[in-house]
């Protein structure tokens, strides 16, 4: 009980005297705030990537590309191959018609709002099945394109990041003019970085005859990819790779994940630097008060109370810093829309997301900083013999 009340007294004393050590306290707060803000910035970025790419694919959609092509841009499929694949085992059919979507993927230029330079946007040709296969699809404005016309619908991400795709606008790609008739959302994932139009129109405008680049098919619950692979291997006319749509996007996300890993490494290294700064600050601050602490111990305060008092001081400062860091990260980064070059060579629009669990991580980080930078100086303060502390002056 005595230890507790003593510790409490020291804590109160230390915390109340913080303002008189303004620069030291401030330095500690800032160091902790920086670490937390950087950490949160990179976590928010990674979270955004995750939502954009990992949220894109479905487990129950089979995705076919030409063998070895790796991405839609490089792939191609003929009408004949599409017809054969549509009848592969395990693909769901409704009223005798398999639910498949053969799609075309061409790259067009759009002007980025942020830099006013041209950047690659995917223009996808697809049919009604293709739209139905996208989970979370929703028209947020306007209407669907009519098959057989030069109408297109624009993803929310494209609308946010690029100029000239507002509803009702006419956009020109080379010789072809398209009318924007709708805006769609797919819940924030990568499809929102695309423009969608009717597959037949796209094939004819881009001289693709009856070729496609990818095929999506609805899988029956009991379907297995191995059966489909065997089916492909047994037919000499086919040369496709098959995987679930979600594994395709997980693969595509790897490039972006590298950026997130890079961010983590940088923030970890920076955190080490800031931690050294914080530790240094606490040591200096404790050293300045060596005599004061020795006095307390001379008049009967225990080791423990000196230790706890210093540790709690560090924790209070780092927590204040951590909260400041969270606020700064939230103000600067939450909801920030950015776009970058994805692995299909087109712009992927994503959004920094600061979710409550990230704030929790930030505060935990702050507490760790406070603990490490408080523990060692506190240990020293509690252990130095009283006489030595008085002799050394400071």
């Amino acid at each position: 009980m005595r230890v507790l009340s003593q510790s409490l007294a020291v804590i109160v004393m230390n915390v109340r005297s913080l303002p008189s050590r303004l620069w030291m306290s401030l330095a500690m707060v800032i160091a902790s705030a920086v670490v937390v803000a950087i950490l949160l910035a990179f976590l928010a970025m990674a979270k955004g990537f995750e939502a954009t790419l990992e949220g894109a694919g479905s487990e129950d959609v089979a995705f076919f590309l030409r063998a070895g092509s790796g991405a839609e841009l490089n792939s191609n499929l003929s009408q004949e191959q599409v017809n054969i694949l549509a009848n592969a085992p395990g693909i769901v059919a409704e009223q005798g018609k398999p639910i498949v979507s053969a799609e075309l993927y061409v790259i067009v230029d759009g002007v980025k709002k942020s830099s006013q330079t041209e950047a690659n946007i995917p223009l996808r040709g697809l049919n009604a099945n293709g739209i139905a296969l996208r989970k979370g699809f929703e028209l947020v404005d306007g209407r669907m394109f009519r098959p057989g016309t030069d109408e297109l619908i624009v993803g929310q991400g494209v609308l946010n990041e690029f100029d000239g795709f507002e509803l009702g606008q006419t956009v020109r790609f080379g010789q072809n003019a398209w009318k924007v008739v709708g805006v769609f959302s797919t819940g924030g994932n990568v499809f929102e970085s695309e423009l969608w139009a009717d597959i037949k129109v796209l094939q004819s405008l881009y001289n693709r005859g009856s070729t496609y680049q990818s095929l999506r098919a609805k899988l029956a619950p009991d379907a297995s990819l191995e059966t489909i692979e065997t089916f492909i291997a047994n037919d000499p006319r086919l040369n496709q790779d098959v995987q679930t749509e979600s594994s395709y996007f997980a693969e595509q996300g790897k490039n972006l994940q590298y950026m997130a890993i890079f961010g983590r490494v940088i923030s970890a290294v920076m955190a080490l630097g800031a931690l050294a700064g914080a530790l240094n600050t606490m040591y200096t601050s404790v050293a300045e008060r060596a005599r004061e602490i020795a006095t307390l111990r001379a008049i009967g305060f225990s080791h423990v109370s000196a230790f706890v008092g210093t540790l709690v001081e560090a924790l209070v400062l780092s927590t204040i810093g951590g909260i400041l860091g969270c606020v700064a990260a939230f103000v600067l980064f939450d909801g920030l829309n950015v776009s970058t070059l994805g692995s299909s060579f087109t712009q992927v629009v994503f959004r920094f997301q600061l979710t409550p669990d990230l704030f929790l991580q930030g505060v935990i980080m702050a507490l760790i900083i406070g603990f490490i930078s408080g523990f060692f100086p506190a240990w020293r303060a509690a252990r130095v013999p009283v006489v030595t502390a008085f002799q050394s002056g400071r």
Partner: protein
Amino acid sequence: MKDLYLVYKNLTRKKLRLFLTSFAIFIAFLIFGAVTALQGALNAGVEMSADNRLVVMNKINFTQPLPYAYVNKVGNVDGVDKVTHANWFGGYYQEPAQQVITLAVDSAHYFDVYSELAVDPAALAQWQANQSGALIGERLANLYGWKVGDRIPIASNIFSHGDGGHTWNLTIDGIFSGRESQTDTGYLVFHYQYFNETHTYGGDSVGWLILTTEDPSLNDAVAKAIDANFANSAAETETSTEKAFNKAFIEQIGNIGLIISSVVFTAFFIILVVVGNTMVLAIRERTGEIAVLKTLGFSSLRIFTMVLVESFLLAFVGGLLGLTAAYITVEVLSGVFANFLPNLVLDQDIVIQALGYMLLLGLVTGMIPAVRALRLNIVSGFSRD
């Protein structure tokens, strides 16, 4: 000499503090060096572009092809000196992850237009005569240990070979190098004609044209003339300087690079502020000692210099170590990422910038206590204790 000894003693009186301070500075400069080098690598293409070189692309997007006939038509535009063309092959070696940047080019003029690439005339002549031959860049040759005379299978993730499969067997006829160290030589070129005859998808189209103008002042006029020439045709063109094209390509990677680097630079400065604060306070602790020195007859100016030297030493020891570590990191990374970032180097400019910041750190953290020491009145110096 005695003064330096005193400075040394002052610095090392608290070893832990010396270590922590130097370590924080070390980290700050390590990150600074590495991130600045990374930024430089991203921008290198822009700086290396030739003034009088233009690129002609399909207006829809540079991934869309242009008809082969455009090569001659562009060549006839006034002000165009030389013109050549290239196709993206989507090449890889053995497995898709091992990308080998491969271009199918016009063997007659490619090396005339890219005059910064040096290739032995005999090797060039041999390549031009060998239909299934290839020339490879020095960096690529080093990466895979390929030598002249090697026969290498290069597969394409886009095209199929007329004989079946996706693999083209190419013989290395020579190795080209850059006339400057930053020139990118991490790619392979082979004959467009051979490519055009052997692949099965479409034909007689080129990826993009590269041309030189007779004089950089003609760039604008030439670009306009070319685009006007193909306006309202099936394949409209967009002509821009090589520099503008490279710049736009970097913009595609976009503001994310900007965000990362601004976060990092903010952190860099804040770490310096935090460290600087302790450095200032560490010297202020010694007010009493400075008063003793003054009593012993040390001139104010001498003490002023000693304090400044101390903080400069601290800034430079940590900073230079950090910069060295950054240099090593960049060297290692440039080996690993040779394919994506061919120009990852920590060059002179970065070193000069970093030295500037170290100087600034030493000056700011030293100046405050040094001026205080300079003005310190002995009596008040003792009474503070």
